[in-house]
């Protein structure tokens, strides 16, 4: 498809601006005055609409395709949540920061407060900040809270421990927070090697970051022990909430021994992924870390009025402008109150049921390196198909031609040719059965006609793309 700039015609307009009702101001002085207008597209509203409508149709999405992308929790995003978010469109966040302005924002502030309370209950934490703008941003915020905690205690610590199966954001976030990383390998049973973990621990470890269930979809039976060991070294336990969808109402990270947790609202709490964002990554903490939470904080005074605290001395400061990705929080809040206690439990139960169902159905066709009851996702390996020259990526492309978004491939890194499937609770049995049939077809075709798999996809707007050329030429801005 042509670029919008290639459809551009000099002098064309896509929107008519309001007429001015004030006199024109004298122009800016030279030097400050732009001489050449920015080369934006010049198209009519129809051109614009047709361009982006047709662009949208080049995408797979949850609303059009089963999207079992492991570790991303691509559940269905209820439409009423979108409508709820629109209700808050007119409100300026600065109002709340003006003298006496809080009075005019009680709805928004109260919702943030309530959302924090509910997330605290779900995660077993004592208080939550809703400011972080994404999961990784929550991780960074969480580790900064831990650093503030250690600093306040006078601890000098320089390491953060992560298992080798962790999300890449874990070590990257801890690095921004000023720590060096110690990586602990996974044991053959699929969890972080307990012995090697013990060896990695020392008084210089500030935090241990874990996902539980881990990225293999397995619940670590030693998790409590790990927490105890970490605490015995004065380290705090960080819970990466990416996989929270598996355990709502079943187990609370706070009860297990975690001190800090972030939650991905765009995963567990049903807000859409937006083609890469926005998400939101609220962070919950145990009591000892409350003084360090980012500001402004929202408190409820004795009369039930929600007030802002903007100057708490111990705070790590501001993690972002204003109140975080507010519109995402509206959606998550509505999701939680709509599903309620039983609904959230059911979400986790059916997410786990679905993953186990797919795991059992596909086991005869794909290697399953860690053959256990899984939680919300399961990780296969295409190693058997590799014997025929077919890689995990080829299976992925084969699925695309049949209308399925591929599972996550090549993650976690500890599984060779990994195929990580997370169906989520919102998919029906029929949808999963159809997917399973195609996965089986892929396995069979990999044996009988491997080239057919290697040639996929054939039905998409483009076939396989030259990523090397892209990286080499770095053509990231249209120069026409």
């Amino acid at each position, binding site marked *: *498809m042509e670029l919008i700039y290639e459809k551009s015609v000099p002098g064309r307009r*896509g929107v008519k*601006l309001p007429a*001015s009702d*004030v*006199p024109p*101001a004298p122009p*800016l002085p030279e030097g*400050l*005055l732009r001489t050449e207008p*920015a080369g*934006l597209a010049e198209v009519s*509203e129809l051109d614009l609409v047709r361009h982006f409508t047709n662009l949208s149709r080049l995408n*797979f999405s949850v*609303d059009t*395709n089963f999207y079992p992308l492991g570790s*991303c929790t691509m559940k269905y995003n209820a439409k009423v949540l979108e409508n709820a978010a629109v*209700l808050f469109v007119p*409100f*300026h*966040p*600065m*109002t709340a920061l003006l003298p006496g302005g809080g009075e*005019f924002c*009680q709805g928004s502030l109260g919702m943030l407060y309530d959302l924090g309370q509910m997330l605290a209950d*779900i995660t077993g934490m004592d208080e939550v900040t809703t400011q972080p*703008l994404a999961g*990784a941003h929550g991780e960074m915020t969480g580790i900064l809270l831990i650093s*503030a905690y250690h600093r306040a205690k006078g601890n000098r610590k320089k390491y953060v421990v992560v298992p080798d199966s962790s999300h890449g*954001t874990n070590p990257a976030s801890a690095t921004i927070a*000023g720590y060096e*990383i110690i990586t602990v390998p996974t044991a053959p049973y699929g969890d972080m090697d307990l012995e090697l973990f013990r060896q990695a621990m020392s008084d210089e470890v500030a935090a241990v970051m874990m996902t539980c269930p881990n990225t293999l979809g397995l*619940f670590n039976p030693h998790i*409590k022990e790990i927490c105890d060991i970490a605490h015995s070294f004065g380290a705090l336990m960080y819970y990466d909430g990416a996989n929270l969808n598996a355990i709502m109402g079943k187990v609370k990270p706070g*009860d297990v021994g975690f001190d800090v947790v972030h939650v991905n609202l765009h995963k567990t709490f049903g807000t*859409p992924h937006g*083609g890469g*964002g926005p998400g939101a990554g609220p962070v919950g903490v145990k009591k000892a870390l409350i003084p360090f939470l980012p500001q402004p904080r929202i408190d409820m005074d004795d009369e039930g009025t929600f007030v802002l605290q903007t100057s708490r001395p111990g705070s*790590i*400061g*501001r993690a972002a*402008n204003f*109140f975080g990705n507010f*519109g995402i929080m509206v959606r998550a809040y509505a999701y939680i109150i*709509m*599903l309620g*206690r*039983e*609904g959230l*439990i059911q*979400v986790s139960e059916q997410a786990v049921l*679905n993953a*186990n*169902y797919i795991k059992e159905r596909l086991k005869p066709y794909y290697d399953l390196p860690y053959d256990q*009851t899984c939680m919300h996702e399961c990780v296969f390996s295409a190693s058997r198909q590799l014997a025929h020259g077919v890689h995990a990526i080829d299976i992925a492309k084969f699925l695309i031609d049949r209308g399925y978004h591929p599972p996550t491939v090549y993650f976690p890194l500890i599984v060779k040719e990994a195929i990580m499937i997370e169906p989520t609770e919102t998919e029906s*049995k029929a949808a999963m059965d159809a997917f399973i049939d195609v996965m089986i077809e892929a396995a069979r075709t990999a044996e009988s006609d491997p080239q057919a798999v290697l040639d996929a996809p054939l039905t998409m707007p*483009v076939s396989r793309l030259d990523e090397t*050329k892209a990286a080499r030429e770095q053509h*990231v801005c*249209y120069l026409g």
Partner: protein
Amino acid sequence: MNDSHYCPHTPEEIREMLSVAGASSVEELFAPIPPELRAKTFNIPPGMSEFETFARMQAIAADNSAAMVNFIGGGFYDHIIPAVVDHLSGRAEFYTAYTPYQPECSQGTLQALFEYQTAICRLTGMEVSNASLYDGATACAEAAMMALRVTGRTRIVVDGCVSPFSRQVLKTYLYNQAVEVVEIAPLDGLLNRAALAACLDEHVAAVLVQNPNFFGCIEDLSPLAEQVHAAGALLVASVYPISLGIITSPGEMGVDIAVGDGQSLGNPLSFGGPSFGFLAAKKAFIRNMPGRIVGETVDKNGKRGFVLTLQAREQHIKRHKATSNICSNQGLCALRGLIFLSAVGREGVADLARLNRDKAEYAKARLAGIPGVTVLPSAPTFNEFTVFLPKPAAPVVAELLKQGIAPGVPLEDYYEDSANALVVTVTEKRTKKEIDWLTEALRAEL
């Protein structure tokens, strides 16, 4: 069992699936969780129907005051959003997709982000742009960290005229890193260039400024760029994208990394988010950029296509050596920005910027006509300007809020000795009538 229609299984299906999974109950699948760790309480209230949920959300929204005429900005701006922005970004194929890791079935998102990068490059006059960051404040922090990587130095100098929120976020990001942040106190609402000259040395990785700054003042950054480059540092400028319709672009002024908040580009106020941050730079720095980048390439038949590129910078590949920890970004908000910019267009963005400035200049003149009110005269302004009232601003603001006008942002909380100062914002949405109302209401309070 089937309490929620978001969990579609019928009891029969659950039985069938359990039998395949070799479990006699769903509960059995949770056996890997040690019993002593199981949740003892779960106090979320019972669920409700969609209708009741929406009614509850309406009641919450009604607890805010919608009828407020906004003369406030400070990072978020009350601009028009053409109807197409909602309609097109509301296409389910855009908003219910994930990060486009599988390019063949994600060309819609990928091409749009490539077009977005192009729009940002053209608006800022820079060579390369990433595919969005979280917001303008975190973009400042990311740019600072990028400059640290590029230069290998350890100090960041920040103009005190940069938004206090951005400065706070920068400090939070660098809170526990071996980096020094030096702030230069504003001089008459402008960068104190003498103070800057005094602290520019071989440790300085970057100088961070904002244009127009928090007081609304516009500065010519070109001489500054020369000065900063001479010291071997990078100049990072946070800019207000709408203003670039008429203000010389950061690229032309010699800026190395341009950042900003994209809210004004088609993203609603929405009590502060989601919005997006943009980051554009000289091409030489591309491998040190944070965030996703989309690149053009060809498929195996030579057909043009788009992919996420330079992923070797990113956390999912490089882990702790990544240029940033960003995974989710603000792709949909960036898409809104692209649609907005494409709707407004080349001439339109200049017209829009002029309209903002015309309204603000009219308001400035009107407010300056109130006895005792003076306007900060240091520099030209865009659509925000600072006025000094004859008495403290805070109680005046509190009073006008009750009348339905948010007259501006008092500087008291952010700068010392500024109790009487108020930053007033006037976008194209404010009518002459509203500006006149503000004038009269303010006059009456003083």
